[in-house]
């Protein structure tokens, strides 16, 4: 069995291509079933986000990769990348850990991977191999998030504004937000603050009509821009983006407001040029003014902080990947070990019975002792070879050598594998779990 990853992301194709390939949620199930219908494909998962469209599949051989690539359509073929086995696994781990994202460390991708897995589960295209790989990949992603600072610090202007507001005011519940003007970024920030729990959003504009329209869009309450001094007394956060062409919040105005508000802290976010808030306002106690340059600087700091953590995150991903691969190889070694054990047990049991037949007059306890002795000899003889075979994990020549030395080739592999896992033999029609990266 081979793990294949076929697809493209923002790194390989521009948005114009990606938007043509994106699969709407309602079509995911049918696409997954189509993929599983391709020759040799056993399992499939489709990850379709605004930055990537990728198929993760378990197939009988690499040949299925071509069919999977074709399934993406002609547009994708010149951009898409085909990854196999270890490379495909590494990619899955890196994607889940947000190391392959446009904004490294963003939190959404892990949820999207889980969602894609749930869709594949519902469509019946998720099997044991992909499930195991996904479980380990999400585990690695969680380790990356908790053990590094890759997800710390917002990197978009609106989320930085919200983060700073939290830093200044703590919980935003019961806080009042004033939106001055109608700038797009300001609206976005206001919405984020509202969804972060702000009690009220007051929308002020030059004309009442514009304020009302904007209030409807943002779920706020329209107020007149003429009430600005009163608004500054009331607000905890003010987002300024008027097209005034000059400062609308002056130091004098803010000084009066500060006294009236008994020096409660206020956060002023100025998202316009020329600036709406006089720069000297930031010198006042308990008044914090952040303009576009300041927010950009914080974004750059946070990006640098995340970038500095990438190496550490890659190390974690690599550790997890190595551990997962070792586990897979161990599973690959299981058939030889199982056959070896079954063969040795059969020989010991036969010899014990033959001995018991020759020794007449032994009571039950004595017979049990003879059988236990035979089993103990097998255990002791097989202990070292078993440990070596497990350590080698099916990669080297020892597995083949053991099979040849003990004459194990003729025994059915799957039956031995079941024996190792303590299962009853079953017909091939029941299906079995086959190691993902087994040596051919």
């Amino acid at each position, binding site marked *: 069995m081979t793990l294949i990853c076929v697809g493209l992301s923002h790194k390989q194709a521009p948005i114009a291509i990606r938007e043509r390939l994106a699969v709407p949620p309602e079509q995911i199930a049918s696409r997954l079933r189509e993929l599983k219908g391709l020759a040799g494909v056993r399992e499939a998962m489709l990850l379709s986000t605004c930055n990537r469209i990728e198929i993760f599949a378990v197939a009988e051989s690499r040949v299925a990769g071509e069919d999977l690539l074709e399934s993406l359509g002609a547009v994708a073929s010149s951009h898409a990348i085909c990854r196999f086995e270890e490379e495909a696994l590494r990619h899955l781990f890196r994607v889940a850990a947000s190391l392959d994202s446009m904004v490294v460390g963003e939190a959404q991708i892990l949820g999207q991977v889980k969602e894609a897995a749930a869709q594949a589960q519902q469509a019946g295209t998720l099997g044991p191999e992909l499930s195991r790989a996904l479980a380990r990949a999400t585990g690695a992603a969680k380790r990356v998030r*908790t*053990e590094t*600072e890759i997800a*710390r*610090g917002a990197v978009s202007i609106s989320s930085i504004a919200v983060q*700073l507001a*939290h*830093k*200044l*005011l*703590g919980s935003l519940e019961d806080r009042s937000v004033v939106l001055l003007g109608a700038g797009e970024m300001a609206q976005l920030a206001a919405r984020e603050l509202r969804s972060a729990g702000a009690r009220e959003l007051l929308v002020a504009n030059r004309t009442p009509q514009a304020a009302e329209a904007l209030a409807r869009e943002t779920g706020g309450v329209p107020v007149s821009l003429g009430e600005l001094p009163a608004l500054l007394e009331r607000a905890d956060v003010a987002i300024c983006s008027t097209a005034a062409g000059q400062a609308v919040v002056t130091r004098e105005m803010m000084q009066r407001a500060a006294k009236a508000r*008994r*020096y*409660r*802290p206020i956060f002023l976010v100025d998202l316009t040029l020329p600036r709406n808030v006089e720069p000297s306002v*930031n010198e006042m*106690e*308990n008044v*914090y003014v*952040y303009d576009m340059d*300041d927010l950009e*600087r*914080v974004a750059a*700091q946070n990006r640098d*902080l995340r970038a500095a953590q990438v190496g550490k995150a890659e190390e974690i991903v690599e550790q997890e990947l190595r551990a997962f691969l070792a586990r897979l190889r161990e599973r690959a070694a299981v058939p030889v070990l199982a056959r070896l054990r079954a063969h040795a047990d059969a020989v010991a049991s036969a010899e014990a019975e033959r001995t018991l037949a020759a020794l007449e007059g032994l009571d039950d306890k004595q017979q049990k002792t003879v059988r236990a002795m035979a089993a103990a000899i097998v255990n002791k003889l097989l202990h070292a070879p078993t440990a070596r075979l497990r350590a080698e994990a099916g990669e080297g020549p020892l597995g083949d050598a053991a099979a040849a030395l003990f004459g194990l080739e003729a025994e059915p592999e799957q039956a031995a594998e079941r024996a190792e896992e303590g299962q009853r033999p079953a017909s091939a029609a029941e299906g079995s779990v086959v190691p993902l990266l087994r040596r051919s």
Partner: protein
Amino acid sequence: MATVLVHIALLAYAAGAAAFLTWLVKPQTRLARAGRILLLAGVLVHFAAFGVSLGVAGAGLGVSAWKGGQLFSLLAAVTVAGYLILDFRYELPVAGAFIAPFTVAVMVPAHLVHSADRAIAPELSHSLILFVHVGAAALGTAALALAFGLAILYLVSERQMKHKQLGKLFARLPSLELIDRAGYRLAVWGFVFLSMAIATGSLVSREATGATFPLAPKQGFAILAWALFASLIQARLVAGWRGRRVAFLVVAGFLFLVGTYVGLLSGAPALQGTA
């Protein structure tokens, strides 16, 4: 026995301080958890040591056990207990990184002061008022030490926010509003206990020396600290003062209070009475 327990508590505080300081560099939840557990274990052992000590003293409230060094020891225990309550309420591991080393620093004088040198006057050894005085002083100082820690945290955090230079620690700092609110509450509690300590201290002083307010550095600094905290609370209630200026006042007030303890350690004979 009590001394061994105090040593164990000191080790636990030091290990807790190490865990919190490591957390500052490597923000793993388990480090903060380890710090909390170590401080909790330390404070329990520490109070057990006081229990043993009182049991050994076996004299009513056990006041005969009071010595100069023990006040510092009690102060450390109460500060840690106060921090743990604060952390339970507001989740402030970053404050732990300041408080735990502070506790260790306070415990050291407790070991340096020779009991014999600072033994209190025999006529005071069973005085209830001395017991109340020492208890109030320890509680007040612990609350104000915590307020001081938060004030420093506030000033650092506020400077970063104001100057838009958000350092590596910024993400781990609590909100300014929370630090300000918690610091002010602690300052109020500290003021209440400090008032009690000064009032009862004057009675102790009168019993020991005949002077209600002897002119000694210890008493002078205590009165200055009290006046500063009284002004701070007045300014907050009347004019709404908050933030940086309140943090500066808390720092100044606590430094005056430290002066009181320097006065205590410098050998002023306030509690030695006529013996």
